[in-house]
């Protein structure tokens, strides 16, 4: 039985936990052999699909990562696509417990140690020293589990990466000390000697911002000595060295959290310290280190109460950095990075260009900003809103009037009721990313709906199957019929009956997102269904998703992963359910979701790390 783990617990490798998320789902529609799906394996268009996007909270009841015990059929988890056994009742989307059985208590997880992502690294330096600092390469982020933050918490940096951190540190430090305006942001006094009181204050002040906490006296002594030993008679030179050194310190490059015992009122659990919370809030909501206001609040020990955290979160959400951070979340959640790799056959898609792809991405970003910041409202409208933002190329692609739109100017439009555009699933980015260079792919489109919008797992195709969808002699002429044919194979039917029907709803949109009534002279049949409810087309799906109980739960879960730099576990379910309730009560206002998450024990508390002797 799931129970709260005794602490300290051994933290299983994060990836191991993730495996179990996936393993448990693989039994679902596991096909047997010999089918073709033509999409899951055969296309680069699935770039960036991710692990752990399932219905399944990690089947890791005690957080110990017991390995084989969670393999399919061994009882570790039994989720099937669309039938999460803990989730039959609508509304939780796998996030919470079901009525009728006692809710599992929240069980905190041990901390993870994310390295700063590239964006966090650059934003932090920019906040400290002003914009347009010289840029040298730093090790790229990786997102095996959808979010950069999770890659940053699971992978080790390479030797080249450490070299690049060193190079970047020297270049940035030199730029800061070559510029009076930049330098004065960090060094506010005039040192007379390289280890005088001014340098002491500088080390403490700079260290506080870079390490996101007060320095220990040992650290102060260490870095003042660095200044003294490297000044060569020039205190500014010593101060520059301190900056160049601190920028290479793991205390800056990694977010190291150990927490502290919480007062008895919290049941003896552990909580993040105020300074750790300052960093957690800042990196989550602004993709940058904490500012002085946050650090001052942390110095006063305030950032342990939900109300104080909410106040700070609301303050941060009013900053431009928060708008960019929200964009970063949605770009990763919606997989917009894949757009960079899209190539379409120019002969078949003459209007296709890099500029058009960039416009497709921009329109999603503008819609997100609209739904989260400018007008607000129900974020689920992302998948159903009749409003959008188009430039001239997109207006032409969609056939809408957009006065004032040019190649570079986007204008707000309301898609008329008689046009087939409502929400991002009917817009260029989704339609293009989830199609092949020539043909569309109902399978890829359906898979995206299942995994990203509904947080359901899609198991792998069976091994050694014929994945060709090449048209063979005697094959029926349309893609749908060929796919239907594959679905008659019992080995494939289970999964494709799950994946394809929502994908078919988009058959009226070609690989570039253009509307079409016929393909190769055959009229398009865009009927399909979602979990047994027949639907006529993508607009029907948009309408269904606008109130679908899984959509809000899925967004909650993805934000939770993004914020915590890890996949969720079974122990997180109670916290997820609480956040989702607040989200629902707000009418699915995204900023309210962020605030609810920040207030949640799932963001504020942790299990003790395993500390080695």
């Amino acid at each position: 039985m799931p129970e709260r783990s005794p602490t300290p617990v051994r933290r299983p490798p994060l990836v191991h936990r993730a495996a179990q998320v996936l393993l448990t789902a693989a039994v679902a529609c596991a096909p047997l052999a010999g089918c073709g799906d033509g999409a899951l394996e055969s296309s680069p268009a699935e770039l960036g699909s991710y692990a752990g996007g399932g219905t399944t909270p990690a089947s890791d009841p005690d957080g110990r990562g017991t390995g084989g015990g969670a393999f399919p059929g061994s009882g570790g988890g039994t989720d099937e696509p669309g039938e999460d056994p803990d989730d039959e009742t609508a509304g939780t989307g796998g996030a919470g417990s079901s009525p009728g059985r006692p809710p599992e208590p929240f069980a905190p997880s041990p901390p993870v140690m994310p390295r700063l992502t590239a964006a966090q690294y650059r934003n932090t330096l920019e906040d400290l020293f002003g914009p347009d600092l010289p840029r040298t390469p730093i090790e790229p982020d990786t997102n095996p589990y959808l979010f950069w933050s999770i890659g940053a918490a699971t992978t080790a940096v390479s030797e080249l990466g450490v070299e690049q951190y060193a190079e970047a540190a020297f270049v940035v430090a030199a730029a800061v000390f070559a510029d009076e305006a930049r330098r004065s942001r960090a060094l506010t006094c005039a040192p007379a000697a390289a280890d005088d009181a001014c340098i002491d204050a500088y080390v403490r002040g700079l260290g506080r911002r870079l390490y996101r906490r007060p320095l220990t006296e040992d650290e102060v002594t260490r870095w003042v000595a660095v200044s003294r030993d490297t000044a060569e008679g020039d205190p500014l030179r010593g101060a520059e060295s301190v900056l160049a050194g601190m920028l290479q310190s793991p205390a800056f490059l990694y977010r190291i959290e150990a927490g502290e015992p919480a007062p008895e009122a919290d049941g003896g659990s552990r909580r993040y310290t105020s300074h750790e919370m300052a960093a957690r809030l800042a990196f989550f909501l602004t993709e940058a280190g904490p500012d002085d206001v946050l650090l001052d609040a942390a110095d006063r020990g305030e950032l342990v109460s939900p109300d104080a955290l909410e106040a700070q979160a609301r303050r941060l959400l009013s900053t431009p950095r928060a708008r960019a951070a929200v964009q970063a979340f949605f770009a990763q959640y919606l997989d917009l990075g894949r757009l960079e790799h899209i190539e379409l056959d120019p002969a078949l898609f003459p209007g296709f260009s890099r500029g058009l792809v960039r416009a497709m991405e921009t329109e999603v970003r503008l819609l997100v900003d609209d739904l989260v910041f400018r007008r607000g409202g129900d974020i689920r409208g992302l998948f159903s809103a009749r409003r959008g933002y188009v430039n001239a190329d997109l207006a032409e692609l969609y056939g809408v009037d957009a006065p004032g739109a040019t190649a570079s100017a986007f204008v707000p439009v309301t898609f008329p009721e008689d046009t087939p555009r409502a929400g991002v699933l009917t817009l260029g980015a989704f339609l293009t990313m989830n199609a092949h260079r020539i043909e569309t792919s109902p399978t890829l489109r359906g898979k995206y709906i299942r995994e990203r919008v509904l947080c359901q797992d899609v198991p792998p195709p069976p091994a050694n199957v014929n994945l060709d969808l090449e048209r063979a002699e005697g094959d029926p002429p349309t893609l749908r019929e060929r796919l239907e044919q594959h679905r008659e194979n019992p080995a494939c039917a289970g999964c494709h009956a799950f994946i394809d029907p929502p994908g078919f709803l988009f058959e009226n949109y070609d690989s570039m997102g253009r509307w079409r009534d016929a393909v190769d002279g055959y009229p398009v049949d865009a009927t399909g269904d979602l979990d047994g409810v027949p639907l006529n087309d993508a607009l029907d799906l948009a309408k269904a998703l606008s109130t679908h109980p899984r959509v809000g739960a899925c967004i909650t879960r993805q934000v939770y992963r993004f914020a915590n730099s890890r996949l969720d576990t079974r122990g997180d379910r109670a916290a997820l359910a609480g956040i989702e309730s607040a989200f629902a009560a707000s009418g699915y206002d995204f900023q309210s979701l962020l605030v609810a998450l920040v207030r949640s024990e799932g963001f504020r508390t942790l299990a003790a790390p395993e500390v080695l002797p």
Partner: protein
Amino acid sequence: MMIPRRPLSRRTFLRGALGGLGVALALPPLEAMLGPRAAGAQVPAFPPFFGLFYWANGTPWHARHGGEQAGAGYPDLWTPGTTGAGFAPSPLLEPLARHRPTVVTGLEPHTEVPPAPPGQEDGHMRGFMVAMTGDRIRPEGFDHPSHTLTALSPSLDQYLARHPGFYETPPRFRTLEVGVSRARFHDYGHWNAISYNGPDSSNLPIMEPSALFDRLFAVPPDTREADRRRRLLDAVLGDANTLRAQLGATDRGRLDAHLEHVRTLQRRIEVATPHCEVPGRPGDDGDLLQKTRTMGDLLALAVSCGLTRVFSVMLTSPATTHVFSNLGVPEDMHKICHDGRWEWVRDITRYQMECFAAFLDAFQAPQPDGTTLLDRGLVYGTSEYGEGWKHSVKELPVLMVGGAGGRLARGVHVREVDGNLCRAQLTALRALGLDDAQFGRNGAETADVLPGLLT
């Protein structure tokens, strides 16, 4: 232009070794302190180098790949018609003939495939990982539908570069990693790199010749600046020492990996920069073949002047989505493999071998003493599976180019049908002077080298 060599004083060396935190720092041999080639007969004049050269999507399928591939009726254009020395190059190996490759055919992974999670037998996973590491993928965290996977063991280049029998003291760069094609099947994990230190620890390749040039030939800091940098790294290690105590095992391992790299940087400040004739800084233009050639030119120089002795090259990334439009192929390679476009795969494979040959040209150029770099070392070429249509791991291609200081036979075709792929890797390691009793893990262990190759 020449980079002046900075002599290394014993005082400098000791200060670096004893200052700071008592960090373990191996004593450099006399050779490093006196500069290369100064230590006389105690060390071999030319210790061998190792290069790992990877191309994606195997070879065109034929009957020997089994299954449906056998029924497709395509000829085997890869395997030479005869074995032993003096074989006539096959059509796909013709471009490499000028470098006298030793060709090994018929091998396949012998690793066990765990029953769960499913999908681990797929060539992209099993074939690739055994070809790179001699081990299977790490089952924990493996996810076939999303292709999320990580290595269990280090790749051959890293295995060798950390082997006590290979480097006494690593040169300026323990290893170098480069790549050429930017197309990626996924943006994460092993789809971005072929060089691994172990689980969740990749060495991403340098993708631009100019960036490789800058790394190799950056003007080293003067003594004063070097002292300063070393001093900063001492402080960085001092910070880290306190932080370590707060971490659990997994994160402590990640931090320790970081700190090892910091110590490598420190050591690099200590050792003298070898004497290199620095060429002009290359541009990053050019097609795949030209960029591969430029990377080869730079790495050959790096090897010849003692900057490194181990490198890896990712010509194309695993399951590459590179569109070889220069060959008239309209779609990406992974897709055309699955679509069964054999003729296109044939043309692309031949082109990838042309790239490999161009890469090797500088290694074949005569050195001042009349030998070539290929006489001294070994470039090991391989791919991720036998063929890309059905991902068969049978007939996994292996090429060994170079004589490894006379220890490896050149221009020989060895055929071992259904043989253990790790035998080729063990053979290469032995040729490079390692005395490993066996290689391979998780079912692929072998103590047998390939016959007739080690001399």
